């Protein structure tokens, strides 16, 4: 696989560390309660199509990336800086 890092360009997936679902961006508020954290930490949509997920360009610019990828074909549909995505929501 190759990932088009917004900062570094298209790079081999070996440079990246995979974290998992993009939902991990949405950490509940401190007072959201145990159930919200349980959902955040453990539950997964795990779609068989487009998955929203976090990759870390560990051997490159060390940017966390929010990626849309079809997990049945391994096709990358979009790659964004996670930091920009979070800022956009704030």
């Amino acid at each position: 696989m190759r990932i088009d890092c917004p900062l570094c360009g298209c790079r081999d997936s070996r440079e990246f560390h995979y974290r998992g679902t993009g939902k991990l961006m949405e950490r509940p508020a401190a007072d959201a309660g145990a159930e919200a954290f349980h959902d955040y930490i453990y539950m997964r949509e795990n779609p068989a199509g487009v998955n929203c997920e976090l990759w870390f360009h560990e051997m490159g610019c060390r940017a966390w990336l929010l990626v849309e990828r079809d997990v049945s074909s391994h096709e990358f549909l979009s790659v964004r800086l996670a930091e920009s995505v979070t800022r956009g929501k704030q």
Partner: protein
Amino acid sequence: MTRFADGGLIERSQQIPFNFDGRSYLGFSGDTLASALLANDVRLIGRSFKYHRPRGILTAGSEEPNALMTIGRGSQSDPNVRATMQELYRGLTSASQNRFPSLSFDLLAINDLMAPFFGAGFYYKTFMWPKLFWERVYEPLIRRAAGLGALSGAADEASYDKAYAHCDLLVIGAGPAGLMAATLAAKGGLDVILADEDFILGGRLNSERVEVDGKPAAEWAVDAVKALAAMPNVRLMPRTTITGAYDGGTYGALQWVSHHLAEREGLPLETFWRITSQRTILASGAIERPIAFADNDRPGVMMASALRTYANRFAVTPAKRLSIFTNNDDGYRTATDLAARGVEIACVVDTRTYAAVDGDFPVLKGAEVVGISGRRGLNAIVVRTASGTRRIATDCLGVSGGWNPSVHLSCHLNRHPVWNPDIVAFVATDDAVPGMLAAGAAAGGFSTHAAFQSGAAAAAILLRGLGRKVPRLPLPKSEDAPYVLTPFWHVQGGGKRAWLDFQNDVTTKDVKLAHQENFRSVEHMKRYTTLGMATDQGKTANIGAMAVMAELTGRVIADVGTTTYRPPYVPVALGALGAHGRDKGFAPERFIPSDALAREQGAPMVEAGLWYRPSWFPQSGDTHWRQSCDREVLMVRKTLGITDVSTLGKIDLQGPDAAEFLDRVYSNMMSSLPVGRIRYGLMLREDGMVMDDGTVARLDKTHFLITTTTAAAGQVMTHLDFCAQVLWPELDVNFISITDHWAQFAVAGPNSRVLLNDLCADKISNDTFPYMAAGEVSIGHLKARLFRLSFSGEHAYEIAVPARYGDALARELDRLAQQHHGGWYGMEALNVLRIEKGFVTHAEIHGRVTADDIGLGRMVSAKKDCIGKVASQRPGLSGQDREQLVGLKPVVAAGKLLGGAHLFNLGENPVRTNDQGYITSQCFSPTLGHSIAQAFLRNGRARTGEMVDVVDLLRGVKTTCEVCPPVFIDPEGRRLRG
């Protein structure tokens, strides 16, 4: 001799001696081992896998199922090499496989007589009694009989390499389609890689007696290759097989660098390439398919196209009196070509009744080969026609069942090929691998003209797709014979076995049995019969078996479906795929700043993650590591010791929000830490378990320096990046790892301050530099960082200097320490010191423990949120069932404690249901004079003073211990603060 007097692409001036099964032969430069053996009239070259049937060479390519050889002798011999792919070199030594005691007399040939009992899946129905016989009797027998070649068991001494390449266009296969595509694309300005598994580029242009632009095809190929080689944007890769298609335009490729050389000095044997391409043209050609008939595996039965290759390219014929069995016009080419070379054509047996006869030889239409005679070499065939059967003397039978496009690589991303009824074969779908187009025979165009034409067309499409202009390039003039075929897969009737998969010995009977037993899905059939699971992945076998299954189930082949082709296309040596994995190449090596000094002092170095650290520092007279270790521990406790702690993760954080950030990632409060002070910190994972522990030093209001354990340094850094970028980008904080930038040494023991005051320009005292102070000091002109920290329980410091001064500082510390009867201590002593003091490492914080489990529950601040806080409050993570960190000391001083031993209530049976916990760390404490341990014990903190049995069933040790707090030394911390 079966070598023609002239012709062929061999260098007759270079005779090459070689050896097969102990006999010497001569071949020519340009020969493969297979062509050279045929030229020497060697017909029997191996034994089949299951029935140990005599076998001869079947093909002239990488699809060869029979001619697997061991090349070389002794511990470095190379098993399962295809003789059809091995170039001849001076002194090549080869041997047949899977036979005992010899190729001509193989005892296990008895299996062939037992065949009625050895049908598909017979082993699932027997060998079940008695119970113990499987491992002791049946399996060893089966294993010895099975297998092809042998490895010696000695380390492979060959060198292998890896390489990487990028291109705009990868052309797979350098036949007419590939050459045409590469030429057009290169002229259009693309960076092109043209790879072919053969050592001469040109594909079947080198095997056919056709003309291109008025000259012999092979000559045309030489010119085309020359023209490509002259272009700077083209890389030609002969002897290179594309082995797999992967995501993102990535391809694996295996290059046989020096298999063909007698002298390999300085060259890798093979190189495994990773090629990344924008676009790909699959011009991999096609593979001729056999027809199944009784005893069709006998030596002398060969693929018709292979006979042409041997005759036209290698000037060799295994046939003196040739027959052909065909269902298509292509079979006639072989008869024509060999007849032109003076080989007698006994007959062409054509299953079709309508075929247009072409050639001056006998043709039997509507005929089938129903039998064979000649066990170790064909001497006659039995042919059935409408008018009856007849026997025809012949020493070689060329078989042509039509052609299968080599679609394998197009299937590697799980897309199935599509059935093309016009050519009665599966063809690749375009973009089955994104960016890949098939051309030439791989796309089902079987004439030379069709190959040129489709190669050019595919290149034109890709050029346009990449926004390039398509240059003008006239198509070479070449034959455009139609491909006329009537499907015919196997000869019906007769009780004898007809082979589908030569290597795995799967016959039509096996497929029928699979059907009879309801293994009818193509995958079931494959798995039950093992068809297509041999080293050729069924390249010659699969389609015939699907046809038989289609017949049996009343379906068409397209509906039977295909099994999935998987990488690699040809088998890849693990040495090549795993090149540089051997020995120290497996992982990077990290060396501490005092590495040289430690080695000078004779310290054995031990792996700590990727680092090497000194285990202990032996002194003359030491006979056991424990002597060194005990001495070092007592030295630290009595005077002082120094050790290199540069491996600890060091992260420099700065920014107005750094304190807030640390409050969120550490469980305890960091924002209240005064400048110039240090605090022990605990980091949790979001699931509430302890991630790591370390220290936080506040160098300035907005400037912190944190440390991590050696083991978790990478994980913590990644975690902090995640928190800062993903969770809280609004916090104004920046950080970098400075682990490699600073050399850091611990100076521990009652005399540590004395040493530091010798070393540093600025003198410190307990008042100016109390426990948990941090600050800057000068060593000469050098600014150093000093931290008053202790992981030994002693009055101790860590001093850090830029890494380039690490060795110098280490040597200075060494000199000063000796003045106070101190010195270095290694990992073993470091571990003892920390166990004595009750500090945890990742032996304790192993990912399943909470802060409370290790007695640090109070470090999860009630005043603020932090990563992991909410999850750590789940009901299952507290209460009497949790195992908590305790200390253990044996009731009898000599009592032995072992890491990994389990704890039980006194006198209870050591069984799982009585399990109370386990030891995580243990050592002999020279300070206390007995063994001590850290352990997790169910509800342990409430059980101080209780006796437990510590049992190690593996090593037969049982020791009764008293439960105590995990801190054995100076629980009040007086030494730390002194």
